[in-house]
């Protein structure tokens, strides 16, 4: 078995050997077991379902919450002609959706990426049942856990979907899961303890630096300095789009290197170009919100700087995990000022509706069948939030009655729904508190702190450990002088410019 698995790995992916944990996961899946795989970011999660997809008779369904991520992955697979893959998500036009569904039905694909909300649709389920699903892989499986930092209601319904699809084996994969989250995933997806494959999340080659600052100007000066001096390509994460824009604008006034912003407010093609420029080394740094990085497979990112405190340890670890996937030395800095906490607290407050908004939504739902965007805007609710409220209402009332309209359900259970939201808020506050505690740690090893948070004991490192244990930052500086060559003033020649793109 093992040799044939390796042959497949070699032939289809070009790798000589499995990375730690991959083989155990794949064996479990091929034996028809439900498996949970916890692999570090960059640990090769996608291989664990892509390889079985090639070997199993029917199709493999990959549930992924991140539309851009699934599109990237499918794009990459198409480019490499590795596996016949496609995706179904809400961004597809109805005509495209129908076309893809026909192609799936005709057996064109082995691998189908799908967003959780598409998977709830009965005609999609009917189609998948008809074609035959051999494996359901659930990416970012921590989203199913209400104790996770990234809980999504559409994930909670996945166990029902698995059943509806004829109970094929389930593979849940994630890079961030505390003990409580792991237990909940196993419980919901019926995964036995012996089928949990846990890989150390400790990233030995990344030095962990936490830098407390008193005020904004101090932080900005230090970050701008690091952006100029640090070796190799890197990412700077900010909490808000506005902070991204301001930092980029400031850097571009004086900075020596090529930098660009990246956030959800930019259009598709722009984001595509910026990402590609970064991958190909034409850009030195990306200053981004957390919208950047999912599915980016770039081995030689040398540093990640958090301009502000991230919302949770999970988010933090995921983001610094993009450093040094090639195993070479990397560096992660976290800047922390007290005011960062206020921004997060404000965001947590704003994220959830008030008690009054719940009543307003219930009233709207009772008046009309489907909600228009305008109606939602009038009570300042997002579609997502409305869905969440309806979901909670159905969940609290389901045991008592059936076939009640959502408006009535929501009205009758508004208090309990609100209590549920309060619990969610509290959880986010707790996550934030954990993050603050980490940022304020001055006595104990930060590496141990991270790993301890995820229930691990490993704390080895290759070059340097962390700022509490003592850190020589100059090791990450570029010894060469600035690479700013100034703007090249060459004369413009259309023929010549075109021939760069389209050589004769």
């Amino acid at each position, binding site marked *: 078995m093992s040799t044939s698995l390796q042959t497949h790995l070699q032939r289809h992916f070009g790798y000589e050997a499995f990375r730690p944990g991959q083989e155990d996961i794949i064996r479990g899946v091929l034996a028809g077991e439900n498996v949970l795989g916890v692999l570090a970011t960059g640990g090769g999660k996608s291989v664990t379902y892509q390889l079985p997809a090639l070997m199993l008779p029917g199709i493999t369904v990959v549930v992924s919450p991140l539309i851009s991520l699934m599109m990237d992955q499918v794009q990459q697979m198409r480019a490499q002609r590795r596996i016949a893959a496609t995706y179904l998500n809400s961004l597809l036009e109805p005509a495209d959706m129908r076309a893809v569904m026909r192609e799936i039905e005709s057996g064109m694909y082995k691998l189908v990426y799908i967003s959780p909300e598409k998977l709830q649709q009965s005609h999609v389920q009917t189609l998948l049942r008809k074609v035959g699903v051999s494996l359901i892989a659930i990416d970012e499986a921590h989203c199913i856990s209400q104790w996770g930092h990234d809980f999504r209601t559409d994930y909670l319904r996945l166990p029902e979907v698995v059943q509806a699809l004829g109970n094929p084996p389930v593979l849940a994969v994630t890079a961030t899961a505390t003990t409580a989250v792991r237990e909940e995933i196993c419980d919901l997806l019926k995964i036995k303890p012996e089928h949990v494959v846990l890989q150390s999340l400790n990233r030995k080659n990344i030095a962990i630096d936490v830098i407390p600052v008193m005020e904004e100007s101090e932080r900005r000066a230090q970050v701008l300095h690091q952006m100029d001096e640090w070796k190799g390509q890197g990412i700077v994460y900010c909490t808000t789009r506005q902070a991204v824009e301001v930092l*980029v604008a400031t850097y571009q006034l004086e900075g020596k290197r090529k930098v660009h912003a990246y956030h959800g407010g930019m259009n598709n093609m*722009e984001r595509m170009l910026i990402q590609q420029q970064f991958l190909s080394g034409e850009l030195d740094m990306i200053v981004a919100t957390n919208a950047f990085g999912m599915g980016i497979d770039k081995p030689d990112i040398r540093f990640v700087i958090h301009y502000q405190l991230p919302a949770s340890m999970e988010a933090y670890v995921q983001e610094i995990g993009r450093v040094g996937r090639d195993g070479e030395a990397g560096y992660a800095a976290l800047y922390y000022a007290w005011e960062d906490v206020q921004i997060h607290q404000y965001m947590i407050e704003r994220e959830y509706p008030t008690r009054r908004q719940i009543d307003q939504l219930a009233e709207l739902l009772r008046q009309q069948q489907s909600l228009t965007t305008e109606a939602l805007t009038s009570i300042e609710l997002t579609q997502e939030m409305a869905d969440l409220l309806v979901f909670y209402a159905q969940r609290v009332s389901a045991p008592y009655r059936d076939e009640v309209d959502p408006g009535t359900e929501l009205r009758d259970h508004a208090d309990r729904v609100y209590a549920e939201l309060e619990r969610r808020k509290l959880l986010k506050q707790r996550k934030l508190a954990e993050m603050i505690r980490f940022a304020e740690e001055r006595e104990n090893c930060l590496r141990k702190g991270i790993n301890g948070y995820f229930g691990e004991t490993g704390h080895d490192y290759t070059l340097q450990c962390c700022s509490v244990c003592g850190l020589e930052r100059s090791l990450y500086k570029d010894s060469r002088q600035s690479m700013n060559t100034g703007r090249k003033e060459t004369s413009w020649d259309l023929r010549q410019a075109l021939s760069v*793109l389209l050589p004769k």
Partner: protein
Amino acid sequence: MISRSVEAQEQEMLSAVALNAMIPLANERTLQAVYYILRGRKASQTLQDVHLYSLYPYYRMFPRFSKENWDKIVSNLVQRGCIHIRTDAGMNGKSTFMVTTEGVRYAAELSNHYQLARWLTPFSASLLTFNLDTFWKRLHLLVQTVSQIAAARMDFIPVVTDRRIQSWIKSQLRSGEERERWQVHLGDELYKLWSPHPMQVQQILVGQLTGAGHTGRTSGQLAAEMDLAPLQFQLMFRYGLASSVERLQQEREAFSLLKALLDADHEERGDVRLSESAAKTYALIQRGIPKADVARIRRIKESTVEDHLVEMALRCPEWDASEYLSPELADAIVRTSEELGTGRLRLIKDHLGDEVSYLHIRLALARYRGEATS
């Protein structure tokens, strides 16, 4: 981000563009109508306004123009004494506006300064329903794909994710023979197409393209490199696209490969000259179904079907509208409109009396103007 002076310049250019679009609509339409045109709203009324007042260059000029920013521009122009909002209940209670002499002067001054006339020339009626965005995406992905073929490296990530664009490219490059043709001639045809352009326009077009081992710049990066305000960049970019399309339309024979870019996106929808919904209505009308039945079949309001009829009168010269409007009546309406010097439906209707409906007037004006301009 942009420096304060650039931002001021942006606002000034926006004002200039907005004011130019307002002038023909003064006393006739609401300010909202101008906003809809600049944003490129697909409603029949907006398309008709564009047509009636020949505002082709302005249509869909700023697809992401926010209401806040628009309100800012308007209040600015009011403060400068360029426009007056009229509160008399002329337009069914909606307020029209007028442009002052100062407004006209200011528009002329700024247009001159920013060479607006030059960058807005290539837009004609034929471009109104032409999707420049699709054109550019096709071209961009075509260049990238052909470049990768030339480099014999097919493991690339397309810069355009739109499936329809991707499958169009595939359809163009299906056979080895076709790939060979594009590879040999694409550079030459682009050179022929773009060499008459001003240098900066050439740089804007080529600088954004991606090829093997070379990633295109975003509009923001390129504008910064060229020291252009984003809006100036946008105007020149649109000029480049529109004049490319116009030239391809006029000289199809000279561009045996690139002319394919003009093909309608058939997968997209029915008749590309019409809005999506109007195209569906047209298909039914062509089968001889009366408008009341069309409304019933399509489950839309009859007034919406009437909007579609007007759109058809505007864009589909082959459509025989006589069932809804006799040639004699059309003639009378057009004459009245000219005599009164207005396109305002209410005034025309008041003049002609009760037997003339708004639909009659709208059809007549659409037909007449359509014929006059095409």
